[in-house]
């Protein structure tokens, strides 16, 4: 008995010792399910690749929950080293001066080679400040794509629409073939933010919000209103299925073959491959011929990794080491293949091409092609405060347009008024 206890104690001591040798860094993320498994695999691979640092990755729920957990932890001075923050929350963390260390500074301070031009165009400046310095490390980046049911399109005898004009011509035929032509998940992201990017239209003053927090939204414009009037007309004619704000409900309508085409995320590719019992393809986001400068590249959605301040140099070095590992072509290629998110560096994209990945599944390349299309002045992204609530306002007003409670004009007037109120609050909060 005594021997046993002694040996157990020795074993515990030994384990304790090895754990002490490695500097532990924590990573809070919002990836669960299949995505979470991939994150865990990457974490394991990183830990196996070296023995100086031990990365612990923890899922904190969805994007919003993770951000809330990070905020609470930071206020309690118990923040993790790395936190994943989604696109709409970027302004909140970047404008809280001193809460995070810019990833570019962190990498350069730890002698990791960094060149912003290594990153693909659509990803490069989304999480950068107005001088072009990268603040957050792009991680899971996706962009909206049009998925289509091949059988449905064949049955109706139509081609995949490249423009909304072509869509309008195809929709009645699809209806005749027994399908609702189109559904879409996440209206604010796809039919607002990326609509502006696709048509190279300015989204907000002050350089889309990158230059200042003193900013006003420019959504209340004819091009966007005109688009939504069309959407409403399509819905009334039975060409557009509106299944509410839930991402899954709209996607399910496509999976169950009620709608022939669905606009979702390039990151949905992996999931669709598992759930759809039919042959589907992916294509670029349609645009209005003759509106703005279209077609220009879209910008990304998804999330980035931020390095919280307030940790010692050894831990920060570990964070830099992990970011280096994460942006390696092999890691990115693995991530891209498993999830459908785009590879964030040119080198990773080249590797995927070299490995012949796009020969076997050409649709996986559509997202990155679209992000690499010609960019314009307003395709770099946006930086708007309280944008999570602004999206809530958009969701709410879109509901009202769709159920006929409000006209398009009235809804957009409300969006403008409430969004500007929120932006002003944000400016008053963060500018002093």
């Amino acid at each position, binding site marked *: 008995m005594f021997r046993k206890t002694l040996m157990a104690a020795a074993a515990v001591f030994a384990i304790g010792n090895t754990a002490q040798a490695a500097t532990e860094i924590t990573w809070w993320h919002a990836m669960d399910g299949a995505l979470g498994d991939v994150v865990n695999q990457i974490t394991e691979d990183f830990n196996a690749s070296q023995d100086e640092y031990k990365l612990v990755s923890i899922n904190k729920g969805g994007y919003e929950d993770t951000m809330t957990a990070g905020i609470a932890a930071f206020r309690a001075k118990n923040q993790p080293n790395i936190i994943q923050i989604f696109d709409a929350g970027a302004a909140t963390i970047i404008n809280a001066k001193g809460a995070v260390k810019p990833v570019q500074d962190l990498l350069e301070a730890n002698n990791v080679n960094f060149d912003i031009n290594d990153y693909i165009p659509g990803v490069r400046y989304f999480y950068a400040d107005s001088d072009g310095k990268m603040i957050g490390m792009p991680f899971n980046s996706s962009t909206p794509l049009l998925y289509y049911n091949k059988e449905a399109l064949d049955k109706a005898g139509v081609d995949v629409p490249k423009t909304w004009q072509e869509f309008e011509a195809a929709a009645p035929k699809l209806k005749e073939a027994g399908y609702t032509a189109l559904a879409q998940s996440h209206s604010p992201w796809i039919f607002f933010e990326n609509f502006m990017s696709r048509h190279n239209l300015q989204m907000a003053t002050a350089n889309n919000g990158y230059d200042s927090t003193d900013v006003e939204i420019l959504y209340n414009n004819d091009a966007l209103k005109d688009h939504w009037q069309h959407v409403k007309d399509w819905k009334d004619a039975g060409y557009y299925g509106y299944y509410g*704000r839930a991402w899954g409900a709209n996607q*399910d309508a496509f999976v169950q073959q009620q709608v022939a085409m669905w606009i979702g995320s390039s990151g949905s590719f992996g999931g669709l491959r598992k759930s759809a019992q039919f042959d589907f393809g992916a294509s670029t986001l349609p645009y209005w011929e003759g509106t703005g400068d279209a077609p220009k590249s879209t910008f990304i959605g998804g999330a980035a990794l931020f390095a919280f301040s307030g940790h010692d140099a050894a831990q920060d070095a570990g964070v830099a080491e992990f970011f280096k590992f994460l942006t390696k072509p092999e890691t990115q290629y693995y991530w891209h293949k498993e999830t459908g998110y785009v590879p964030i560096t040119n080198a990773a994209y080249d590797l995927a091409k070299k490995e012949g990945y796009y020969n076997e599944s050409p649709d996986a390349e559509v997202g990155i092609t679209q992000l690499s299309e010609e960019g314009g002045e307003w395709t770099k992204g946006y930086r708007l405060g309280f944008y999570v*609530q602004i999206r809530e306002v958009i*969701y709410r007003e879109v509901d009202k347009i769709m159920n006929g409670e409000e006209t398009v004009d009235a809804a957009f007037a409300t969006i403008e008024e409430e969004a500007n109120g929120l932006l002003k609050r944000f400016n008053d909060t963060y500018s002093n």
Partner: protein
Amino acid sequence: MKRVQFEHSAVPYLFIAPQILIICIFFLWPAVQALYQSFLLEDAFGMSSQFVWFRNFEDVLSSSSWTRSAIFTVVFSVLVSVLSIAISLFLAVRADEVIRGAKSYKTLLMWGYAIAPPVAGLLGIMMFNPLMGDLYKAFNSFGFEFNHIENANDAAFIVILIAVWKQVSVNFIFFLSGLQGIPKSVQEAATLDCKSPERRFWTITFPLLAPTTFFLLVINLTYAFFETFGIIDVSTKGAPGGSTATLVYKVYVDGFLGADMGGSAAQSVLLMIMVSVLTVFQFRFIERKVHY
């Protein structure tokens, strides 16, 4: 009545001290914090803040979505409380009359109590899923043109249905034990005096249940105000057009999701005031009609 006497007057205070301490730590302190926070414009990470007096309250009260949410909260709470009390009272009376298999009836009716609100919300929304929900299909096959995604009333119907269903079992337990507490002799005497079971119920049984009913009214209103949050988050997320967002849900969306600390603190202070007024009203005006 004989009073218990303590030698030192400090002893009773000592006994309630733990309770007072808990109230202070978990209720009063957060309330004071919320009040203070509601006067601040502060960034989410707490790096800078400024005192802005009543600006947050002005912003909240002038927004149309808050007003809509406040109206919905009141309607929702009244409907949920009244319906769940009425239904469970009916069920309790009927279950009390059952002699054979009474136990299994009672157990079945109590089951709902064990279900967490988000799970209830999930169950509800699955039944109303436009693609596969059985209730959704059933409603539409009766020619209702039921569509909670677009129609605010239909969405409110779903939220109320789930909230009531979830609460009925709790109320049922209280009513049933209340009924079983009524002496058999009183009921027998009533049966001799009065033939109509309805009259017997309203003149004898219900007044004797009045304390229970009043207690449940308070509990149910609090439930409708605060605890239905999980149901709404899972089932409608306040859609369509913010028509099913209760005030608590809005506090959550603005404060937790939107990281607007001052704005959501102001909303929660307003909520606190509303609930206090409601509580005072209940105890001043309704409790007078209750005989213990």
